[in-house]
């Protein structure tokens, strides 16, 4: 502990004031280092959680105990329930795991993250400095420049513990401050109030762990009694759920199911652990506090163990209820249609073993993906009150499906392929890139076109563009079908360079219509530019489809003259 403030005397000298400022800034610095460490840790771990990682996790977590075990490990390493939840949701979205498995992972993650408090309660300064030193020194080596992710993760872990250590050391002198002691004394031994303080501080700092460590440090400094620290720790855990609940309000479907399970986790843990604590304190029955005392004689470590026990209480209670919870959550928060759209319907991991049929399935999935794009324009057409949120969800589901197709093609590329299959794979990858570009453009167009309450002229143009581009997209979907030869010729004819037309339309509207607001003018500009780009991309897409037809020799459905020109 840093002895910077023996400032309990009524007269404050300049030296005392300086020491106090130093202590407070140490607190702020410690918090900053903690959050910077968490950021480094989470962001770099995310880079390691690619397709192979997620597939390996899916294989490992086929049983519920294995899913819990993975959750504990992931929570302990990542130290971030939202980060683990994000990976879980993405695995759910790509169909790699079932909801029950995801819930088991989240359950384990809660126990895993609580282990940080135990580790941070130990004196691990030497280990922390060593981690920071080794990871930091590796940055000096240019040879290791290509593999910086792991050192950055280690550096992040080091920063997390350094930040917590600084915070812990600063709390001692602050705890000696008369104003703080008065404040804590004024709350008396009100356990409900401290429970509430734990909740509020956890929500405000968005870090339950830092509040738990603060409570442990205050108890260690004598500012809080042991029991007061316990109730604050319980409150901080419940606060974590409150924060998850607030953050999950805009979520829907499986994301909401997982988030609400997380909310239920700490709430149920509190329902189990609070009565146990009350029975022990009031009735003198030896329960969790007694168990913590059995584990260690060190009070700070006892408090850290109680935090883990709180989470284990929730985990043991909820573990047998996971299937029922999954059913209940599915009923309460049913997946929106977009979520079903995000899951692949044709491709699956094992299909990559047979490249030719795998490529056929990828083509079917790509057609399905393109058929989802008009739904973005349908939102612009209908202009519901929550258009931005719907567009965002729809865009996310399209991006998820696109990413699943991309990963499948990547997996096919790892196989040993015949030259013709390589050509097909290349064509499919080109198509995938173009579809992504078209999806981005259509989303931009739909976003500008979905603004309601516009000038009549802007509304009219918006409608014309939405319907016109929608017709082209529908043609593209037909062109990708089994008998799409003629539609492909039509698509190639109707798409293409629209710069002159769109410039004329844009200039006409802007010059002719009086009363257009700045927003209307901006949207007219965005819509015309986006539709110009959409036409150009669709023309390139038609070219890519023709190139693919040439590789596959599937020119039978094309008109003879066109098929001949392609063959030549």
């Amino acid at each position, binding site marked *: 502990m840093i002895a910077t403030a023996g400032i309990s005397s009524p007269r404050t000298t300049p030296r005392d004031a300086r020491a106090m400022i130093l202590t407070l800034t140490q607190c702020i610095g410690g918090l900053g280092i903690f959050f910077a460490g968490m950021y480094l840790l989470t962001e770099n771990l995310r880079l390691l959680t690619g397709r192979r990682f997620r597939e390996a996790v899916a294989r490992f977590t086929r049983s519920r105990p294995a899913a819990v075990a993975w959750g504990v490990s992931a929570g302990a390493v990542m130290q971030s329930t939202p980060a683990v939840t994000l990976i879980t949701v993405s695995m759910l979205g790509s169909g790699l795991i079932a909801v029950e498995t995801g819930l088991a992972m989240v359950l384990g993650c809660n126990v895993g993250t609580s282990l940080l408090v135990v580790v941070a309660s130990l004196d691990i300064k030497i280990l922390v400095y060593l981690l920071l030193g080794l990871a930091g020194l590796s940055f000096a080596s240019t040879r290791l420049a290509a593999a910086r992710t792991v050192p950055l993760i280690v550096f992040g872990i080091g920063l997390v513990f350094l930040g917590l250590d600084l915070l812990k050391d600063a709390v001692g002198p602050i705890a000696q401050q008369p104003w703080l002691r008065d404040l804590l004394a004024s709350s008396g031994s009100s356990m409900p109030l401290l429970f509430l303080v734990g909740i509020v501080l956890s929500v405000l700092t968005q870090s339950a762990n830092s509040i738990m460590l603060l409570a442990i440090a205050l108890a260690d400094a004598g500012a809080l009694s042991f029991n007061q620290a316990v109730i604050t720790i319980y409150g901080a855990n419940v606060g974590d759920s409150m924060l998850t609940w607030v953050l999950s309000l805009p979520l829907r479907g499986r994301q909401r199911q997982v988030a609400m399970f997380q909310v239920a986790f700490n709430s149920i843990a509190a329902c189990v652990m609070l009565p146990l604590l009350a029975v022990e304190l009031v009735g003198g029955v030896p329960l969790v506090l007694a168990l913590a005392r059995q584990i260690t004689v060190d009070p700070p470590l006892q408090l850290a163990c109680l935090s883990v026990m709180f989470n284990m209480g929730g985990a043991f209670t909820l573990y047998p209820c996971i299937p029922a919870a999954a059913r209940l959550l599915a009923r309460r928060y049913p997946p929106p249609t977009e979520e079903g759209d995000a899951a692949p319907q044709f491709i699956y991991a094992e299909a990559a073993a047979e490249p030719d049929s795998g490529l056929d399935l990828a083509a079917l999935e790509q057609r399905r993906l393109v058929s989802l794009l008009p739904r973005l324009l349908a939102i612009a057409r209908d202009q519901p009150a929550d258009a931005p949120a719907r567009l965002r969800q729809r865009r996310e589901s399209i991006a998820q499906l696109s990413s699943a197709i991309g990963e499948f093609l990547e997996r096919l590329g790892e196989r040993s392929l015949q030259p013709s299959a390589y050509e097909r794979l290349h064509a499919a990858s080109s198509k995938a890139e173009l579809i992504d570009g078209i999806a981005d453009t259509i989303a931009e167009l739909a976003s500008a076109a979905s603004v309601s309450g516009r000038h009549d002229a802007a509304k*009219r*143009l918006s409608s014309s*563009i939405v*319907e*016109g581009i*929608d*017709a082209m997209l*529908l043609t593209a979907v037909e062109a990708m079908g089994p008998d799409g030869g003629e539609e492909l010729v039509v698509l190639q004819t*109707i798409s293409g360079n*629209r710069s002159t037309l769109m410039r004329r339309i844009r200039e006409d509207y802007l010059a002719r219509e009086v009363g257009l607001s700045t927003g209307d003018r901006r949207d007219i500009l965005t819509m015309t530019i986006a539709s110009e780009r959409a036409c150009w991309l669709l023309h390139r897409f038609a070219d890519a489809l023709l190139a693919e037809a040439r590789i596959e020799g599937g020119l039978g459905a094309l008109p003879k003259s066109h098929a001949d020109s392609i063959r030549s």
Partner: protein
Amino acid sequence: MVKTERTSTDVLVIRIEGRLDAASRAIVEPAITRALQSVPCAIVDLSGVSFVGSEGLRLFLMLRRKQGSARMLLCNMQDHVREVFEISGLLPLFDVFTAQHEAEHAARGNPT
């Protein structure tokens, strides 16, 4: 919604009114398909069409594919309907006339 008028033995004028979208497609499509099967030339008068949606545009593409040897001429497009045809790129695929008499003239084998 759809009214037909035979102006000569070879030409049938089909007047469409209201919105041309997914809902009205079910009514309009069979009417024009029948017309294209019964005469060598059908003139589709769009003066009464207040809105054309993507499904309406797709209908014309489908009719174009099914028309066989029959001719389908479009006329009297309102400005905003023409704009949708232009933006979708469909306009050059069809014989479009500003007035019905021009379309009839063309139907009689005298291109304007």
